[in-house]
Structure formats: structure tokens, C-alpha cells
């Protein structure tokens, strides 16, 4: 029998039955169900694995404090800062008020 001669209501029933048999959802108005957000694979894990792992001494010294690993670059930097402070070339004191501050007192 040609589908063109079938009544729309009968076609709908047929479709419904078809969905029932093949276990697909019957959605005659083609409404969006948001199923695609569940169907799509999760992209987070592959995104987090993009950059290759780098060897970070600072992180390892932080992680294993009891091993007392010496980060030589950091020690050197620290010594330089101390030396600079001794010569009066350290960072200025934090401003307590707007009047002390060089930036906040300015008119902009």
C-alpha cells in the first residue's frame, strides 16, 4: 500500500508502534530533549592531559618537605633579596593609608 494514500493519524500510529518495537523515543514534534549533552563524550580528561608534564623542583620540595631538598635557584634568589635589602634596595614598605601610598594619593 502506498504511503501517500494513508491517513496521517494512521501513519503516526505506525511510527509510534515502530518506536515501541525498536525502543527509540517517540517524538513527533521533533522537540529538543537535550539528549545530545549526555550523549557527547566528556572532554575534560583529554583537555587536562594536553600539556606534557614538566619537572618542577619547587613543587617537589613543597611535596616532600621532610626530605629537605635544596632548591638552589630559589636559595640564590633568596640570598640576592637579602643582600639587596641590606643595601637598602629592597621593596618599599606597604602603605598603611592613602597618604603613604604613591599610587592612591594621585589624582587620576
Amino acid at each position: 500500500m502506498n504511503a501517500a494514500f494513508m491517513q496521517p493519524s494512521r501513519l503516526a500510529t505506525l511510527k509510534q508502534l515502530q518506536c515501541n518495537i525498536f525502543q527509540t523515543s517517540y517524538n513527533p514534534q521533533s522537540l529538543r530533549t537535550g539528549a545530545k549533552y549526555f550523549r557527547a563524550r566528556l572532554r575534560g580528561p583529554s583537555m587536562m592531559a594536553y600539556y606534557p608534564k614538566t619537572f618542577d623542583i619547587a613543587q617537589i620540595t613543597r611535596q616532600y618537605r621532610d626530605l629537605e631538598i635544596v632548591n638552589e635557584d630559589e636559595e640564590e634568589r633568596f640570598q640576592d633579596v637579602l643582600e639587596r635589602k641590606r643595601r637598602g634596595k629592597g621593596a618599599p614598605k606597604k602603605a598603611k593609608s592613602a597618604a603613604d601610598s604613591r599610587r592612591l594619593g594621585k589624582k587620576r
Partner: protein
Amino acid sequence: MPCARVIRDIKARKGVGANEIARRAYLMVARNQTLPTQVRLHAQMQLNTFGRYTRPTTVNNRCHETGRGRGVISEFGLSRFQFRIKALRGELPGVHKASW
């Protein structure tokens, strides 16, 4: 120490990974036309409360070596110039300069 843009990108990647499932659930509710409008609106409001670095579109594949954000060859994760340098040095297996 990677450059600031790479650090920002790593932050975005972590944020996306941590919030992906919750975001997907809200997206599903908000885009579902079979649910009542009030529920969908509420889900959309919840989606808007997520931070900037939880959206996958804020993630940008950058060069592993230099952190450059443009001209990155995705197969190697390197910017075009770093790719050339490494290829000529023979550090990329199977890649050699074309000659015919």
C-alpha cells in the same frame, strides 16, 4: 615556569574538567523543550553562575614549547616555528623536510 597565558589555560582546563558533569546536567535541563519553562529558566540561571574558566570555549591549545596561541600544529602541539626547529633537529619521529 610556563608563561602567564599557559598558566591561565591550565586553570581553564582544570575548571572545565572539574565542572563538566554538572554543567552538562544543567545544559540538558535548560535546552530540553519538553520541560516547563520555569524549570528551564532556573537551570539557565544556574548555568550563568559558573565561572568564566568552566566553559570549554575558554580553553585554547597553545604551543608546548613557547606558549604561543596561534599557528599551533595540533598534531604536535607546537607552533609552526617550533615545529620547524624540532623537525630539522630530527626530534619529531617520522617528520623530514620535503624534497623532490
